[in-house]
């Protein structure tokens, strides 16, 4: 890919004209650096010395700096074991298991050491393996990054490809277009004569517009590979730090005669690692900071290990169980001590011979020691309450869940060949509980690509197919209207209603037809950046328009008012179409559009621009325009102008800019189209299109001369006031403009983003947009993806100019606080309470709003708004917002982004998602899930998240249940055996329980359970809210299941003891002994827990059946084999099933009885809940899978509609709003028509005539 680019770029290079941009630009982007105190060099903080082109100097101390090898791994070969072990044993549960494992080696252990150590090794091993694999992946990606190639100077003017990691400080490198900078570089020269280059810093701050960097004049001469043979310089600069926008250094460089000359360096000479060279063929630079010294690496945070909320809650459950464990262990030990310690005990219980102490745990002389030993033993014995196998199973289940997510074909993107990938499997169930999505804009919602969509010239809108909202609304309306009409017809069959309705619906059809046609045509056109179709403008048709002059002027603005340059397209020479490169992607689209309309901007020289125009006569002519001035765009000016002289000698000022700015500067004669244009602009803006207004002005020579001289004067001014001066001067010429029209550009959304957001909104998710881009763009996108809509109340939070200029924290705070308060008042106001609200926050305002004392107020306001858009946000702020939202609201947050600037946010959020489609991998590396496109979020959350949450919740609850059932029977037995710590079951039963007899069904539950199928999940996003409310893992449920476990264990134990004690259990008169009671109780436990899971599962594939019934069968098979072993191995259990319990009918009917009794409470609970308090999924299951078709399609559809949460954002919400609006209009229209018809003379005559006819 990269090499391909390089080759094509090489071809283009020779065609490109050399232009000195610095002469064209007038404003701030090339401002001289602010004065810095440079006397600090050599002192701490400013001690770095770089010997340019002499990296050999940096091989030894004291100038030895780290290599360019960047490592994001957590461990290395040596530290892996201790570090990851430490991580593992930070979990309390694991520590407990470690204690148990250590104790198991002693004689205290009731079980074999192996059965206690093996699971621990497994759990810890699996977790460590997972860590290891994840780290390995990180390592591989590091490797990929580190082995990227860059051209490095090796002497004698020779540049060879070297991998990034061997790069050293002082190396001279050559970076080619579209390549990333391998480290922080000092710009020496570029392919442009004046040494500027364009840099895309999306990975650093998310801004998509290009930034200009410019080298020092003294290094300009090194613009050729050969010249670097002689290059020698020394840089003294600050020590590595994380500030992206500052850089203090001196370059000491000169010819042989004046070695001492030193030049100050500024951030505008610094090219940062991970930013990308754009629009510039190549640059030369010297490596200053490498590897971990680079600013971007210093900005990165260590990825925190995340744990899901369910798991954290599970920890609390474990604490409860732990408490239970301690309690019953304490009871056991105290009980044991009380029995042994009584002075008469030794006499009474003569058969125990306690005085002949061979066992310290029953020593009546040392009650404390024996009590402690008993306690330890009990801790191990009842360890079944704290299921280590739970951790094992969860690891296994999550791994399998992740595998299912990775392999979902619906989550596979054909275009990129990538699929959604779960990078850390321990957050699967978090996906089902997300309440807030914090999304990046560029690259995440949009594909960072502009398209020319519409324009309004002379007050006529072109390219205007109806937008989807209107189309959807009208379609839905059509249905509504039909039924409405039917009703009306039935009630009153006067002809007038029908007429009107027919008219409307035919209108509707026309619109639909148009839309379809437009779509068909789009396939044919297919020009990148140009998504425009209107026969009135294409193919020179505009020549037949009424006012051709204004048309031409409009296109001229398009073709001339920009900073772009044409690039010859090597492949398509036959079509004579050019490609363009410009500072902002919008300008490119304008140029492409102008080309399509017949105004091809074909060349640019230092002082002239050449345009191939269509003459009013219809012929193509090439015209030259002398570029007199370029008044560039800035965020405060919000407009850009060029002043050109055409071939005739007329001077024109072409201006484009934001609507309000231009409208303010229109001349009296220039407002002809203002009204119509304003309406169009509003429409465009509502569609989420970015708009720009075009205007021009003819300037008299004399006026220009006068202005030009003042302007030149201002231009040469040096100092702070230069910019202000320039602006003021520009102001004087940018007036009395003539409005031409407006254009609308679409920041193209990614596939399916609007639908996805719609679904997510219905699922009750809130979406915040955090973007580094400017406010206008952000708001446009807000409209485009339906986060904003026209009838929404928008709060704009931004610093007033006043407060900003004072630059006093206090004033700014007050300002923001006032705004927040005012907005908040609106939200709590009764009248406007239910109105949709939106909040748009500016980066600077955000900075203030997030200060300690007012951030609570801010978040309070933000949370009450339906959608929040933050613009001009720095990466750090993104992370900060995420953290605050997470903390303040306590809601589950999901952050999604694609660039390195989103890394902080991704790491901070509960779930971080990286878009993997783009080149940069930082976001993906930091993320928990990666996906090729935003739209997959819908399925990932609503289907997989929902499932995983339910699965894990059910699984944990069941696990708790099953282990309580089993563990407590062990405890109850102690009550019958003087708390001596005897075990009812054979050691192997204990091992088998969690290993073979109950593990597989619960794993199948955790992997395969589905309450409803994926289609239904998507049809009823409202089901997702079950996860948000956390109802499946609430304390109510947890306690309920614990209670159920206690109840079941009691039922099993008491019934068995009661039924089986004393009298014979076989016809042969035999009575039960320990092994018999043990095996019968244990059988009941196995049956009960396995049948219980069958009651929980609602989705039986053959796998579940196989595992559940297989587990029960497995128990009998085990018993058979165990009993068949010689007594040396099988001990008490020898021949147990075949000889003793198997032939006894009692065994079977006792088990049947106990199992039914144990399950009955839950079954009754289930019946009552299902019958009287069904939950949404129950009802939907019934609607869908009920044997009889109990609901017709209509109900199904209706419920699908009504399940949508009353959301304020999203496509459907907008459609609904539009329908409301249309209905309102329809009503008004009808009232008007009725009025006019009834009052019109024709109508009167018609009615009279019909009446007469009837007669």
């Amino acid at each position, binding site marked *: 890919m990269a090499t391909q680019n390089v080759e094509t770029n090489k071809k283009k290079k020779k065609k490109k004209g050399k232009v000195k941009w610095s002469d064209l630009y007038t404003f701030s982007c090339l401002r001289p650096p602010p004065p810095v105190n440079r006397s600090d060099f050599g002192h701490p903080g400013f001690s770095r010395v770089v010997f340019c082109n002499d990296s050999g100097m940096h091989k030894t101390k004291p100038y030895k700096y780290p290599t360019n090898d960047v490592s994001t791994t957590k461990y290395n070969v040596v530290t892996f074991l201790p570090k990851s072990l430490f991580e593992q044993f930070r979990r309390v549960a694991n520590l407990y298991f470690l204690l148990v494992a250590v104790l198991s080696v002693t004689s205290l252990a009731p079980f074999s050491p192996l059965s206690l150590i093996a699971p621990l090794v497994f759990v810890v091993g699996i977790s460590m393996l997972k860590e290891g694999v994840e780290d390995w992946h990180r390592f591989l990606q590091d490797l990929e990054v580190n082995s990227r190639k860059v051209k490095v100077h090796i002497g004698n003017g020779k540049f060879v490809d070297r991998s990034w990691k061997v790069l050293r400080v002082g190396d001279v490198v050559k970076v080619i277009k579209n390549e990333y900078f391998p480290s922080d570089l000092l710009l020496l020269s570029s392919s442009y004569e004046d040494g500027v280059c364009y840099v895309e810093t999306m990975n650093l701050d998310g801004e998509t517009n290009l930034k200009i960097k410019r080298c020092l004049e003294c290094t300009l001469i090194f613009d050729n590979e050969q010249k670097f043979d002689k290059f020698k310089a020394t840089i003294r600069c600050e020590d590595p730090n994380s500030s992206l926008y500052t850089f203090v250094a001196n370059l000491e460089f000169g010819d042989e005669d004046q070695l001492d000359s030193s030049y100050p360096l500024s951030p505008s000479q610094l090219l940062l690692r991970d930013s990308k060279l754009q629009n510039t063929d190549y640059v030369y630079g010297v490596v200053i900071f490498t590897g971990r010294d680079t600013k971007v690496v210093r900005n990165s945070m260590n990825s925190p290990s995340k744990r899901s909320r369910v798991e954290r809650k599970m920890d609390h459950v474990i604490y409860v169980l732990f408490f239970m464990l301690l309690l019953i262990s304490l009871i056991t030990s105290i009980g044991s001590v009380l029995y042994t310690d009584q002075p008469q005990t030794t006499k009474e219980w003569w058969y125990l011979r306690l005085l002949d102490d061979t066992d310290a745990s029953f020593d009546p002389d040392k009650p404390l020691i024996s009590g402690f030993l008993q306690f330890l033993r009990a801790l191990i014995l009842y360890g079944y309450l704290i299921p280590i196998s739970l951790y094992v199973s969860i690891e296994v289940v999550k791994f399998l869940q992740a595998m299912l997510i990775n392999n979902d074909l619906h989550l596979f993107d054909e275009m990129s060949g990538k699929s959604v990938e779960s990078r850390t499997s321990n957050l699967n169930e978090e996906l089902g509980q997300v309440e807030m999505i914090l999304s990046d804009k560029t690259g995440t919602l949009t594909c960072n690509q502009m398209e020319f969509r519409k324009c309004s010239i002379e007050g006529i809108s072109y390219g205007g197919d109806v937008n989807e909202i209107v189309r959807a609304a009208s379609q839905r309306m059509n249905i509504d209207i039909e039924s409405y009409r039917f009703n009306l017809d039935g009630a009153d069959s006067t002809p007038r209603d029908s007429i009107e309705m027919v008219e409307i619906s035919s209108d509707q059809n026309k619109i639909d037809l148009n839309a379809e046609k437009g779509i068909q045509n789009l396939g044919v056109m297919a020009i990148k950046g140009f998504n425009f179709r209107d026969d009135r403008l294409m193919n020179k048709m505009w020549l037949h328009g009424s006012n051709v002059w204004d048309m031409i002027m409009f296109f001229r603005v398009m073709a001339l008012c920009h900073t772009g340059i044409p690039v010859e397209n090597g492949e398509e020479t036959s079509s004579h179409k050019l490609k363009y490169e410009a500072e902002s992607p919008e300008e490119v689209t304008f140029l492409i559009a102008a080309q399509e309309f017949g105004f091809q901007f074909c060349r640019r020289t230092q002082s002239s621009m050449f345009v191939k125009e269509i003459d009013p006569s219809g012929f193509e002519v090439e015209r030259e325009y002398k570029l007199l001035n370029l008044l560039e765009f800035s965020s405060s000016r919000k407009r850009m102008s060029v002043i050109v002289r055409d071939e005739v000698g007329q001077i024109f000022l072409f201006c484009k800019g934001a609507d309000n700015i231009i409208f303010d500067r229109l001349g009296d004669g220039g407002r002809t189209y203002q009204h119509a244009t304003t309406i169009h602009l509003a429409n465009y803006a509502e569609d989420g299109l970015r708009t720009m207004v075009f205007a021009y002005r003819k300037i008299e020579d004399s006026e220009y001369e006068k202005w030009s001289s003042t302007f030149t004067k201002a231009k040469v001014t040096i100092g702070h006031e230069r910019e202000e001066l320039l602006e003021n001067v520009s102001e004087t010429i940018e007036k009395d403009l003539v409005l031409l029209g407006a254009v609308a550009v679409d920041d193209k959304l990614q596939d399916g983003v609007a639908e996805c957001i719609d679904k997510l909104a219905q699922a009750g998710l809130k979406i915040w947009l955090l973007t580094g881009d400017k406010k206008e763009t952000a708001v446009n996108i807000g409209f485009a993806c339906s986060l904003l809509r026209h009838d929404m109340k928008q709060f704009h939070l931004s610093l007033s100019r006043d407060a900003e200029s004072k630059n006093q924290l206090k004033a700014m705070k007050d300002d923001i606080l006032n705004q927040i308060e005012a907005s908040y008042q609106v939200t709590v106001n009764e009248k406007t309470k239910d109105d949709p609200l939106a909040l748009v926050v500016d980066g600077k305002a955000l900075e203030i709003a997030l200060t300690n004392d007012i951030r609570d107020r801010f978040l309070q306001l933000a949370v009450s708004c339906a959608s929040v858009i933050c613009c001009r946000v720095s990466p750090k702020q993104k992370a900060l917002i995420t953290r605050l939202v997470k903390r303040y609201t306590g809601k589950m947050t999901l952050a999604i982004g694609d660039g390195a600037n989103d890394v902080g946010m991704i790491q901070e959020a509960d779930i971080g998602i990286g878009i993997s489609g783009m080149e940069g991998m930082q976001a993906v590396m930091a993320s928990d899930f990666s996906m090729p496109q935003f739209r997959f979020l819908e399925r990932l959350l609503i289907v997989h998240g929902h499932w995983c949450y339910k699965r894990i919740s059910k699984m944990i609850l069941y696990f708790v249940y099953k282990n309580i059932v089993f563990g407590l029977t062990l405890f109850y037995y102690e009550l019958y055996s003087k708390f001596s710590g005897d075990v009812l079951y054979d050691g192997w039963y204990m091992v088998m329980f969690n290993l073979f007899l109950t593990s597989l069904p619960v794993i199948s539950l955790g992997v395969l359970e589905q309450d409803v199928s994926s289609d239904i999940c998507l049809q009823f996003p409202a089901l997702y809210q079950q996860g948000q409310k956390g109802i499946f893992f609430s304390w109510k449920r947890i306690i309920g299941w614990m209670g159920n476990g206690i109840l079941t264990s009691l039922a099993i134990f008491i019934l068995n003891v009661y039924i089986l004690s004393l009298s014979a259990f076989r016809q042969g008169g035999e009575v039960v002994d320990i092994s018999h009671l043990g095996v019968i109780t244990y059988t009941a436990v196995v049956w009960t827990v396995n049948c219980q899971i069958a009651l929980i599962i609602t989705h039986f594939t053959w796998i579940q059946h196989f595992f559940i019934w297989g587990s029960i069968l497995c128990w009998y098979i085990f018993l058979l084999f165990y009993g068949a072993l010689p007594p040396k191995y099988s001990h008490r259990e020898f021949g147990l099933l075949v*000889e003793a319990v198997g032939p006894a009918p009692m065994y079977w009917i006792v088990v049947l009885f106990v199992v039914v009794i144990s399950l009955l409470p839950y079954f009754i609970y289930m019946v009552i809940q299902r019958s009287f308090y069904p939950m949404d999924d129950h*009802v939907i299951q019934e609607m869908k899978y009920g044997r009889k078709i109990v609901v017709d399609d209509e109900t199904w559809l209706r419920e699908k509609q009504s399940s949508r949460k009353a959301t304020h954002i999203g496509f459907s919400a907008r459609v609904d709003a539009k329908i409301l609006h249309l209905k309102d209009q329809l009503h008004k229209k009808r009232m008007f028509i009725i009025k006019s018809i009834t009052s019109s003379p024709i109508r009167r005559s018609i009615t009279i005539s019909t009446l007469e006819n009837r007669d």
Partner: protein
Amino acid sequence: MRTFAKDAFRGERPWGDTVCDPWFSVHPQITNADMNQELVTNGASKSKRNSKKPEYSRFTQQELPAWKPILTPGWVITSFLAIALLFIPIGLVSLFASMRVVEIVYRYDQDCVPETYRDNVTSYIQNPLTNKTCIKNVTVPKNMEAPIFVYYQLDNFYQNHRRYVKSRSDKQLRNAGDEFSTKGCEPEAKSKAGPIVPCGLIAWSLFNDTYNLLIQDKVLDINKKGIAWKSDTKDKFGSDVYPRNFQAGSLIGGGKLNESVPLSEQEDLIVWMRTAALPTFRKLYGKISSDLKAQDMITVVLENNYNTYSFGGQKKLVLSTTSWIGGKNEFLGIAYLTVGGICLFMALNFILLYIFKPRPLGDPSYLSWNRNTSRQ
């Protein structure tokens, strides 16, 4: 509508540019073939090579055919009825079986202590010289058919105490050569004369009361063979292992063993060594192979040797017949009947409920969004 719009988007993307947009350029989706033919093939083959497209399988797509049972009223009623219909007959049958069983329980531990020793029972029982013989009469309440099982029942005796349970050596019991493997038998592992066979507390505390039954002064034969499990006599207790040094120490626990009889034939010991699970337990003493008639008077001549007095345990003599469910066990039958009854009741309740107030399956009005709106 949506899919339509999506397709429209698809059509828009057939450019073949590679400069700014690496994403789409790698895999261009071309609708009209005459454009960028080269890139199409290039891109397509590339996409195929790079593609990590998951393989389709029903398992990975989670589309395995599944049975999705729903707890419909029909299911509820059916399951309750099924339980009831299963349990009531079982309950009746087992209750009937239990009622056929005749059981005589006679507690003798208090009656068999002479009046003079009532205040100091332990000294009586521990003194080997006192006369332990005790003669009592028991009436047979109902006809008892052979085989009649004779049990002794001990109370408050913790055979399941961990120290006690462990205190045996299965190895020693099994093989004649392993008499020295007395691990775990302490403090009853070795005597001065050598290893004790059988070692351990369990054997040491062997129950040693004896019963002789007379009916109308005729000796009622108690067969003491065949009271142990076959697996014990055959596999767990060696036929060539003979008791040695048993009860030879200063402290004598319970019964003594005939040193000339191999362990496999010492069925009293074998039964005793099958440790009971609970502190109150019965153990088989022998079998009577003749029938007993109702109102027969049985004279019990017993040797009251075993010390349960020090821990206040009771001793009972039990004579019982069996049925297919074993001994007398009315609780089981009653419990079965009760549960069956409850389920029948539930089933009827639900039937009535669904007749009078049916809840339509999948009633949308129960959906949370509908409930919320109705509340407002």
